[in-house]
């Protein structure tokens, strides 16, 4: 008899009828959950459950996106496993050699298991009956992922997290199989290996963290707190009571602990110290550029310097992040103008919206080149008063791909966006579009007045899937067009870690798309998050083509700076296509060099061509540019004067102005106009006489410029050192209400020791 085909069998494959009891239980549980999630009352009763385990499982899963699939887990998993594996092999070899050295004195032990020694793990698992001389090693193993994620939780006293530097470098997956087989003979045969001993420092009461079981958790929590010791407890009962969705999120709030929910599937990674975290390195991409060279006004073609305004600050945040980790940033990540413009300077602001700029020119001595001078050109844009701000129509385009699953990515994005809400008007609208495996609208345009709705939508986001950036951008533009505000600001805020690997992924195509939409009045700003795979060049290109800013957000503090303090500047453009042009006077200036703006250089003829796009300036934005010049007659010329071509004499230049170093021209367009306007200011030789505040700001920006050049290799900065920079900046701190400047001083010190 011919068996029926598989397809037929499947078709006739009848499932048994559902058990009414199970059905009732599911219905009840779901209804309770439904009420709970609707009421948003975190302290309401937990859903009735068939067992505590299932209910807990249910809670842990709720946050999972419905469209994420099993594969989401793998890329993340294998990436770390590979590197973790490599790290553990290295550790094991070192550990093994140490053990081998010690055991050479005991030949019979060494012969016992020679093959196993090289893979000896730094943290041997010990049974409970081993004398408690290494409690942390024991905890380390217990608190690994499986144990922590075990929904039973009952025995998981994960006394965790003192300083598990080594243990964390170990792959979490391999830890177990490696330890069980080999650790026993080792623990029995020899005193603890030095490597193991160093991985397990004495327990520190303050760093202890207890995760207690569900049953009796309330009691345990109360008791632990009663003891009034510095113990932080989180009990499973509390999970629903915080705005967190699972234990990992709760743990994240404990100081000094970094715990993450891996791909939202309820498994956690614990990190003893944020510094121990594995960091992806080396795949950040930056546009390469060469430093501006020294130009001589005596040569006709080099007399004029033209560039576009740049108000981005992402370079500074990125550099700071790298230095905080003790690593010198790659050179192309350092853009001097963005570092200088990161700070707020007290250049006098313009008075009206119609003439939105005022320029300030200050000449000072160069601290790194004797006999040379620095010309500061400061432009401060008009600051729109709050009530004059147009309504904003914002579309948040958020990357929720699997790669955003890092503490400094999606969680930071969410927090940043919540901060942003605080600086918007109730009549502004916000929509949220996410993109991952599939792009989707999470929130239709909603007035900021209904803040809870927006926050709720943000909270629901979970990372997962690959990145289809282009598709997301299209959807975001559609939404922005739908709720277009004619008189207002229409802007898309793209938050990403830089990956756009599906769809339109050619940078040029994307740029073109953004540019076409710009013509319709919808602008795009890019907020970069995370590192390791950050595509700075793409973020920059998109923001520049979308008339927006590109900012890099590494900390919540940075988010506050960009989205709250400078919300006006980031969102409301007061002038577009701002270009600067300086013509130097060959009678007074022998050489000049523009610090930074390499990526913003324009051709001389572009200045008057209104079709050429340039940087945009937002409400209250300041743009600062620094030229280093060598006056004529100074002994510190870098380039020798030509033997054959005589410099034009002062008399031959028009106007015969020997008291001017040059002439500054600024072109800009008002946001609604397409014809540019011109501002002109001469740069006088004696523009050094300014008020105390400005003088201090000049000092400070000089320090930042010096710092940026040092990071680029110090080609033009002579004997300047990081120490000099720190001192100079320290002396020019001023009020520094938010501590940004003192942070810079710290940064300069860090650069000394960074590699």
């Amino acid at each position, binding site marked *: 008899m011919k068996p029926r085909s598989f397809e037929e069998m499947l078709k006739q*494959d009848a499932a048994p009828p559902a058990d009414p009891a199970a059905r009732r239980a*599911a*219905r009840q549980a779901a209804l309770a959950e439904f009420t709970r999630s609707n009421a948003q009352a975190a302290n309401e009763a937990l859903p009735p459950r068939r067992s505590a385990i299932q209910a807990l499982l249910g809670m842990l899963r709720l946050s*999972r996106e419905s469209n994420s*699939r099993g594969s989401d887990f793998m890329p993340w998993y294998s990436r770390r496993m590979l590197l973790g594996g490599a790290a553990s092999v290295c550790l094991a070899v070192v550990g093994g050699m140490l053990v081998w050295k010690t055991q050479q004195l005991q030949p019979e032990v060494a012969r016992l298991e020679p093959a196993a020694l090289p893979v000896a793990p730094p943290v041997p698992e010990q049974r409970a009956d081993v004398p408690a001389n290494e409690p942390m090693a024991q905890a380390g193993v217990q608190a690994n992922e*499986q144990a922590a994620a075990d929904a039973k939780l009952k025995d998981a006293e994960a006394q965790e997290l003192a300083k598990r530097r080594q243990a964390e470098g170990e792959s979490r997956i391999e830890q177990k199989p490696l330890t069980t087989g080999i650790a026993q003979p080792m623990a029995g045969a020899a005193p603890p290996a030095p490597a193991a001993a160093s991985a397990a420092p004495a327990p520190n009461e303050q760093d202890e963290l207890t995760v207690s079981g569900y049953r009796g958790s309330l009691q345990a929590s109360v008791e632990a707190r009663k003891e009034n010791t510095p113990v932080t407890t989180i009990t499973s009962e509390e999970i629903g009571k915080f705005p967190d969705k699972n234990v990992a999120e709760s743990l994240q709030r404990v100081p000094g602990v970094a715990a993450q929910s891996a791909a939202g*599937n*309820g498994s956690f990674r614990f990190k003893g110290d944020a510094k121990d975290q594995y960091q992806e390195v080396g795949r950040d991409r930056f546009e390469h550029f060469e430093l501006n060279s020294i130009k001589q006004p005596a040569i006709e073609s080099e007399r004029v310097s033209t560039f576009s305004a740049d108000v981005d600050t992402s370079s500074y945040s990125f550099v700071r992040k790298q230095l905080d980790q003790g690593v010198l940033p790659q050179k192309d990540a350092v853009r001097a103008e963005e570092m200088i413009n990161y700070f707020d300077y007290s250049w006098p602001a313009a008075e009206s919206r119609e003439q939105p700029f005022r320029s300030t020119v200050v000449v000072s001595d160069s601290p790194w080149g004797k006999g040379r001078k620095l010309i500061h050109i400061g432009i401060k844009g008009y600051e729109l008063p709050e009530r004059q701000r147009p309504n904003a129509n914002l579309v948040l385009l958020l990357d929720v791909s699997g790669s955003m699953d890092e503490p400094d990515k999606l969680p930071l994005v969410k927090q940043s966006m919540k901060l942003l809400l605080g600086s918007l008007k109730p009549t502004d609208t916000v929509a949220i579009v996410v993109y991952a495996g599939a792009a989707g609208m999470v929130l239709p345009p909603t007035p900021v007045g209904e803040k809870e709705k927006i926050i709720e939508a943000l909270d629901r986001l979970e990372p997962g899937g690959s990145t289809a950036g282009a598709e997301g951008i299209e959807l975001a533009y559609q939404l922005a067009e739908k709720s277009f505000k004619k008189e207002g600001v229409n802007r898309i805020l793209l938050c990403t870690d830089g990956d756009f690997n599906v769809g339109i992924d050619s940078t040029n195509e994307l740029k073109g798309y953004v540019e076409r939409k710009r013509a319709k009045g919808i602008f795009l700003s890019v907020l970069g998050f995370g590192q390791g795979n950050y595509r700075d060049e793409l973020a920059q290109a998109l923001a520049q083509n979308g008339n927006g800013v590109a900012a890099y957000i590494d900390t919540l503090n940075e988010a506050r700076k960009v989205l709250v303090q400078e919300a006006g500047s980031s969102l409301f453009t007061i002038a577009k296509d701002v270009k600067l042009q300086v013509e130097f006077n060959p009678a007074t200036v022998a050489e000049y060099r523009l610090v930074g703006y390499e990526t913003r250089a324009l051709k001389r003829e572009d200045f008057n061509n209104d079709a050429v796009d340039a940087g945009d300036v937002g409400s209250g934005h300041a743009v600062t540019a620094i030229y280093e010049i060598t006056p004529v007659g100074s002994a510190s010329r870098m380039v020798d004067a030509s033997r054959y071509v005589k410099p034009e004499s002062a008399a031959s230049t028009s106007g015969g102005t020997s008291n001017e170093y040059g002439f500054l021209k600024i072109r800009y367009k008002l946001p609604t106009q397409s014809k540019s306007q011109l501002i002109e200011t001469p740069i006088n030789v004696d523009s050094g006489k300014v008020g105390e505040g400005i003088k201090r700001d000049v000092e400070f920006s000089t320090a930042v410029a010096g710092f940026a050049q040092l990071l680029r290799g110090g080609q033009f900065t002579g004997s300047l050192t990081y120490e000099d920079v720190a001192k100079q900046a320290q002396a020019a701190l001023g009020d520094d209400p938010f501590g940004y400047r003192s942070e810079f001083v710290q940064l300069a010190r860090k650069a000394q020791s960074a590699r």
Partner: protein
Amino acid sequence: MDERDLISRAQAGDATAFGELLDSYYDTIFRFAWRWSRHRANAEDIAQLACLKLAGSIAQYRFQAAFATWLYRLVISCAQDWKRSQQRHDHDELHEGASLTDGSQSEDQIYLAQVLLELEELGEGMKETALLVHAEGLSHAEAGTVLGVSESTISWRIHTIRRHMGKREARIGESA
């Protein structure tokens, strides 16, 4: 339509509407969960997970795809979550030949369970594709929407499955 109205009301927070929705869809959820897991208790677990998840995420349904399609997607994701959690919890027991079936099953069912297990190993989404297309009777395009892949991918998978089954029959024929 009535269903649409029900969903909108549930999204607005109407518990009665959500209850009705559950009543009418629990069978579908359970049936698919059972077909996926081939095990009553497990299917009940998955179905409960799916109901819980539905409660939390019904607000995210956008009426872009049919509700049933969206629901399949949700159940599959729950089933996969569930399986992952099982693998984690039963780490050590897996090799003891954890029972795949209830025991009291016909030959056909055991055969199907085996085949589905093979399909699972054949490649990601294979088992789901087979279930959606053959057992649930979805079109290739619909199955594609559920699984988030293109229609042609589904067709390719169905073809691969058929080829696998062909080879399997041949192998069994040889050994017999």
